[in-house]
């Protein structure tokens, strides 16, 4: 009895391990196929344009709300934690940099992982179980070119665009809160705080590099788990949840490694 239990345990661990490596392999293959489909950008231009439009329209309201409150929240925290100890312009600098480099990209990406990643997985997953993916293939249209590549491309480009937009809103809301409502700092001091130790690469890192990588993760894993969906509505639900969880975990992990590597 003991032996059977042990064997079952090890068999289960082994099976899970193999399943994991198969999953990683399949993801790698799909990623390479997605990259190769970039040569068909012109052929799938209509689908790409639709994805850009859809991503911008669906994420704009939530991005705006998040951005305003990142600005306000970081201002309240920043002033509470440091104003008594440090020069005011230094506090403004901390608020500015923490919003640009860390808060906006990661909070926005995590929220969009739920919003875009989840809906992508559900959309592609329901196409898979209702044979619409097979229908695409039967029409000689590659699902990777038609569905995955446009979504990944839109994610890669639109996430930085949304992050830049969110950062502008966040900084404005923080500036307004600090100078017009709380009056803890003058506009001149706030601006000089922003200028302090200003590095172009940091702006590029927080606004473009990180969001672009997070955009790839969100769109790619949304599509990947959607394509693997099976077994009806439950399968679509599982695909959607898995896509969100995997994207969110990878975003947090990569956020650390990118900072460590590039800053």
């Amino acid at each position: 009895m003991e032996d059977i239990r042990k064997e079952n345990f090890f068999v289960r661990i082994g099976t899970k391990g193999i399943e994991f490596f198969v999953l990683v392999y399949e993801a790698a293959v799909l990623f390479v196929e997605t990259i190769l489909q970039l040569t068909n950008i012109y052929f799938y231009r209509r689908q790409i344009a639709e994805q850009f439009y859809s991503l911008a329209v669906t994420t704009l309201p939530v991005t705006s709300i998040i951005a305003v409150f990142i600005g306000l929240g970081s201002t309240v925290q920043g002033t509470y934690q440091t104003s008594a100890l440090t020069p005011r312009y230094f506090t403004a600098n901390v608020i500015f940099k923490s919003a640009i480099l860390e808060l906006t990209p990661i909070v926005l990406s995590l929220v969009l992982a739920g919003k875009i990643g989840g809906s992508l997985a559900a959309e592609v997953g329901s196409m898979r179980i209702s044979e619409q993916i097979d229908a695409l293939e039967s029409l000689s249209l590659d699902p990777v070119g038609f569905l995955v590549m446009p979504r990944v491309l839109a994610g890669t480009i639109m996430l930085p665009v949304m992050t830049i937009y969110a950062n502008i809103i966040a900084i404005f809301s923080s500036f307004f809160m600090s100078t017009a409502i709380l009056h803890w700092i003058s506009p001149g001091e706030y601006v000089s705080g922003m200028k302090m130790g200003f590095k172009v690469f940091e702006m590029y890192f927080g606004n473009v590099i990180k969001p672009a990588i997070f955009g790839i993760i969100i769109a790619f894993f949304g599509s990947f788990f959607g394509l693997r969906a099976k077994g009806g509505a439950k399968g679509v639900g599982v695909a959607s949840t898995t896509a969100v969880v995997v994207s969110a975990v990878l975003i947090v992990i990569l956020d650390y490694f990118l900072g460590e590597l590039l800053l």
Partner: protein
Amino acid sequence: MIVIRGLRKNFEGKEVLKGIDLEIPDGKTTVILGPSGQGKTVLLKNIIGLYKPDSGEIIVDGVDITRLSRKRLFEIRKKFAFVFQGGALFDFLNVKENLALYLRMHLKMKEDEIERKVKEVLRVVGMSGTEHLYPEELSGGMKKRVAIARAVISSPKYILYDEPTTGLDRTNARVVNRLINRLKEKYGVTSIVVTHDIECMKTVADRVALLKEGKIIFVGLEEEVEEKHLDYLYELEEEYAV
């Protein structure tokens, strides 16, 4: 002409197709008859290359599609159209866009030409005036007819029908059966129909292949089926009797 030789396919160790040998002659409707779970859809999806067989050959107009690269396979697939059991219409596109997709992507047709072609095909399937409707607004029978319209709009040589009358009431099933015959007469297409519906077989078949437990057990004319395999038809009728 399509020639299938020694086709085998298994899923997770379960052999679904156990060596299929079948010839599909041009310009005729071949019905593959059999109960559910015998591998009818799997066979159809192998013919169009959606599944890759474990062994065997599928020769389409002299070319073995099982050995083709993905790119060549996509070219060969342009000879085919597939009518899926549930229609598989793209739910994010309306009827017109569903039909226009192939014309727009592969034939680069102009908008007015697409408009004209879509209207013409919808008229043939009796669905005029539904261009702006989305799949969720269509009944089961309407979805099937739009799916057939989407299949025929690409002027394919071969149309594969997966259970075309399943889930339809008698009236709609009759409409779909008549449509299959009409498309054969009007466009001269070669049709492969997989079904368990004996009425469908009687209405559309020029030739019948009986599929049982992953093997073709008979190929011949419809009358011959009734002569030689009446017990098989009874079994089938009993299985699906309401």
